[in-house]
């Protein structure tokens, strides 16, 4: 077996110009695809299942299991690559596509072979205009080597790969909205079942796997080196490495690829350089705007970054878009900022989300102007709770989180906003 690489995904940091197909090929590129097409689709799916790879887009669903839902008997099937990357604080898929595009193309083709798909559509957010054009050129590079299109790597299997640009809508990162958008409709979520993997539920009604960019970029390593080599990284329930997007109040914001199971301290201090001069870290949004905010403590910093350990902090690892906020930040302002995002991005289909985000924003504006009362804080919490679990997609729940958890974890910030005489010392008794 090859020596353990430092990077599985952000390989350009070790191997310059790996976006060039010749360099990629020199470093084991497309070997996994060549290996896969000599196996049966079921063998490929089994290896991915064994690796315990979980979806990196946010939901963390086991990838191999997702692939196995596709009914092999259907003649037309699709792979849709979710490159919509629109969660506040997320910028990992862009780096993969810009610096290591062939690994995504290879991973998507292995997925396509495993489910015997006829075509792959890479759905990029519209703002990734330049990325999409580069990716088109990379697809053509691979085609010229016989790795995309007819008879892939000399096998009987043929598959096309296309890019498709969105046009600015967060909701299109939700898988059924993404499929609607690809079909030329409004990017609004669909009623499920049928699920995308089922006949009637996927792209053009055909069974479809929708996977995130980072998820698929892991697949070549798993097939080339084996599931056990992949599981050597991370924990039992969270295998492999993960790209953590660190933004906000740290010395060195950026993407950091670490094995799952690394600690918060390693990520925030060793990698990202810790807080800004003279500041302390107050709170963290671990999954962009959509996950519950965490109050930072010394004890918490030594906890592990895995799907299961972040749940112990009453939050989610999700896409690992870590927004760091120091002691200068007012959490009411954070709630207001994130609410404006969800209000703007609500697609308008479900009433609780459409109306809920509108009213949350209005009342938060009132609190921010200094005209709020404690009953306004109770009101927004009540509105947020009524949005939970009442919408077709998760956006309604996501929009409720910044309200519920900033109030729960930073009540003093709200009290300060609604009561000019509020003295922070009283929080100890709360």
């Amino acid at each position, binding site marked *: 077996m090859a020596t353990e690489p430092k990077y599985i995904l952000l390989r350009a940091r070790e191997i310059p110009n790996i976006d060039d197909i010749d360099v990629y090929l020199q470093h084991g590129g497309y070997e996994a695809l060549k290996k896969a097409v000599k196996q049966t689709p079921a063998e490929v799916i089994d290896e991915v299942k064994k690796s315990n790879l979980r979806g990196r887009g946010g939901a963390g669903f086991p990838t191999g299991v997702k692939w196995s839902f596709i009914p092999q008997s259907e003649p037309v099937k699709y792979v849709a690559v979710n490159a919509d990357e629109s969660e506040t604080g997320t910028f990992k898929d862009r780096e993969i596509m810009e610096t290591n595009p062939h690994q995504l193309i290879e991973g998507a083709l292995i997925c396509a072979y495993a489910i015997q798909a006829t075509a792959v559509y890479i759905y990029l957010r*519209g703002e990734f205009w330049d990325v999409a054009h580069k990716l088109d050129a990379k697809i053509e590079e691979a085609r010229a080597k016989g790795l995309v299109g007819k008879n892939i790597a000399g096998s009987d299997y043929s598959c096309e790969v296309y890019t498709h640009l969105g046009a600015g809508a967060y909701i299109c990162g939700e898988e059924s909205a993404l499929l609607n958008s690809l079909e030329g409709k409004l990017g609004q979520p669909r009623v499920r079942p049928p699920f995308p993997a089922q006949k009637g539920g996927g792209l053009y009604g055909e069974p479809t796997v929708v996977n995130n960019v980072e998820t698929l970029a892991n697949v070549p390593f798993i097939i080339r080196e084996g599931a056990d080599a992949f599981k050597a990284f991370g924990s039992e329930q969270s295998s492999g490495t993960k790209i953590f997007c*660190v933004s*906000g109040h740290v010395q060195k914001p950026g993407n950091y690829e670490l094995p799952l199971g690394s600690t918060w301290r390693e990520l925030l201090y060793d990698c990202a350089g810790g807080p800004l001069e003279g500041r302390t870290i107050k709170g963290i949004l671990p999954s962009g705007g959509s996950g519950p905010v965490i109050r930072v403590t010394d004890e918490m910093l030594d906890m592990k970054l895995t799907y299961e350990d972040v749940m112990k902090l009453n939050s989610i690892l999700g896409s690992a878009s870590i927004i760091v906020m120091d002691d200068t930040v007012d959490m009411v302002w954070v709630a207001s900022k994130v609410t404006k995002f969800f209000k703007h991005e609500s697609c308008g289909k479900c009433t609780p989300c459409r109306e809920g985000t509108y009213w949350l924003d209005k009342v938060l504006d009132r609190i921010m102007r200094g005209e709020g009362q404690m009953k306004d804080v109770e009101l927004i919490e009540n509105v947020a709770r009524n949005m939970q679990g009442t919408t077709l997609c998760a956006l309604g729940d996501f929009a409720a989180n910044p309200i519920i958890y900033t109030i729960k974890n930073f009540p003093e910030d709200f009290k300060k906003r609604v009561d000019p005489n509020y003295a922070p010392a009283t929080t100890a008794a709360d």
Partner: protein
Amino acid sequence: MNPLLTKYAERIAKTLAKYPDKRSAVMPLLYIAQEEYGYVSPEGIDQVAEICDMDPTQVKSVAGFYTMYSEKPKGKYWLQVCTDLACALRGADKFHEELKDYLGVEEGGTTEDGMFTVEHVMCLAACDKAPMLQCNFHFVENLDMEKMKQLIAEWRAGVNAEVQKLSNGSK
């Protein structure tokens, strides 16, 4: 006759060939219409509808749903500043205000010479390079007002052709 179909025959044919259903081409074709007319104009909507076998009302609803299609003409340089949470923590709100003041425009407004439109947008996936903006869909990152003033001067002088068009042609 369909002027878009005549002028962009090859690009449109290439786009339609990607999908089993013509309707899927509506978004790429709306970009072409926007490139041609400077915004998604009523005639652009009609032509896209004809090519995609859709009702113009359906095309208009798609154009209205997505923020990157503009229903009115923008300045030659369409500056979209990310002021979302992660960027705001790194000074993006202040940068956005200063940029509007420097150019003398309100939110969403265009300078009198028609050169610059400034608006704020939601997260653009460049949070580690804040403040940043998108100029005619191309990312410009790690900005401050000093750099911005220099870029504005260059763009006014017609330097940096890369960002001058709404699209660079192949889609």
